[in-house]
């Protein structure tokens, strides 16, 4: 009987081409990506044709979520610390330990009512970022901590910039903190108005709104 010889085929697939493609894709993503910034709440910003870039430093961000909670973000470490000290001077009934103050300085975003701060800051640091979205800076007319924060932050910011040796060479627009409002597009105008009114009261009449670039 003639034996039928089944030819054994190699099951190895050459992965080199595949590897080439993946490396290419990986390079593309690595070069073009900007990382999603950690923010207390996710917001979808409205579209606009405006093409100004977001300033990268010396900014005070105001984040407004659709239900009206307001959070603040300060990019400068020293400003955050200084603003907190000022804030504690006003709210003298609240005392924070050194350790709690250090924890506060570590995260860019804050937005906890001052009286709940000791409790919030003694949480594990890893949990704080996730818990923050349940709080929000009070900005009612009775208890406008938002106003106090913005006031202290902008003052501490310009104080710090004054101490900068290159201060005189800076343009006027760079001599102060830039205020950026980032609000979800579904936010009712009431909340945005409250924030804008407070900024106007502090004579911060110039600010930017974050938008998404659109073709229009």
């Amino acid at each position, binding site marked *: 009987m003639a034996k039928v010889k089944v030819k054994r085929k190699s099951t190895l697939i050459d992965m080199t081409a595949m590897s080439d493609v993946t490396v290419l894709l990986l390079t593309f993503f690595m070069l*073009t990506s900007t990382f999603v910034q950690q923010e207390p709440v996710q917001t979808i910003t409205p579209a606009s*044709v405006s093409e100004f870039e977001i300033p990268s430093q010396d900014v005070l961000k105001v984040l407004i979520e659709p239900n009206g909670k307001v959070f603040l973000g300060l990019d400068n470490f020293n400003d955050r610390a200084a603003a907190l000290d000022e804030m504690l001077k006003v709210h003298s009934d609240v005392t924070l330990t050194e350790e709690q103050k250090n924890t506060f300085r570590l995260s860019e975003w804050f937005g906890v009512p001052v009286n709940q701060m000791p409790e919030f800051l003694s949480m594990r640091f890893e949990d704080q970022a996730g818990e923050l979205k349940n709080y929000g800076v009070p900005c009612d007319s009775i208890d406008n901590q938002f106003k106090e924060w913005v006031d202290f932050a902008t003052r501490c910011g310009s104080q710090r910039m004054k101490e900068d040796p290159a201060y005189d060479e800076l343009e006027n627009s760079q001599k102060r903190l830039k205020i950026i409002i980032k609000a979800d597009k579904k936010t009712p105008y009431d909340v945005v108005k409250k924030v804008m009114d407070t900024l106007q009261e502090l*004579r911060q009449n110039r600010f930017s709104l974050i938008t998404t670039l659109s073709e229009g």
Partner: protein
Amino acid sequence: MAQVEVKDNGGKKKKGQQKKMNIHVDFTPMVDMNMLLITFFMLCTTMTESRTMDLVMPSKDAVTEEQQSKLKASEAITILIGDNDKVFYYLGEPDYKDFNSLVETSLNPEDENSIRNLLLDRNEEVIGLVDEANKAYEEGQANVKAMHLSKADTEAKLAELMTVRDDAVSEAKKTKGAPMVVIKAKTTTENHDYVNGPGATYSSLVDVLDEMIVCSVGKYAVVDITDGDLFLIGNYLSKGELAASSDFGK
């Protein structure tokens, strides 16, 4: 490909010849790892480009009568953003008796009665000047590129052109007779005499501000809505019934 071909010399082996190995590198783990990294980058990046829109609010400090700049009624356009993002406008001074003095308009530029069309029409002169400045800038840009200068020189020339254009644009926006747009957005109202509803959303405010940029409106301000404006909206929505039953504006 990732294989080093080994010549086969017919099964005969010379004495002392080293045994040649078939060198084959398996790339599968490499691909696995790359895919993992790609997935990571894809999930952690944002593709939408965030930009900012500058907004200058009017000062809240009390101003005296003399300091106030007078606005001609013929130049003023007031845009009201009402409940559920309905948009209205009136020109000049409002007429509280006639509900037709308020016109309902739309944010969709393709509509016949859109804000875009209104502003393009009213702001024709300024838009023409801005277009001219932009054209001049583009021509200049092409000329500079055609000159094939060194990189630094090209950049300096382009920056110069940019300043010229920006100056021309800001000059154009100061044209006499250009409209001044007042934007008023409604907040939530309950049990109000004239009109009740959830108010405007932030996105419609940004849309209206966007129209200002598109139509090169130089003077515009976001102002608080007044009772009179609410009355106008209520009167328009009830087709004049409110004016008949209320004594506002009489």
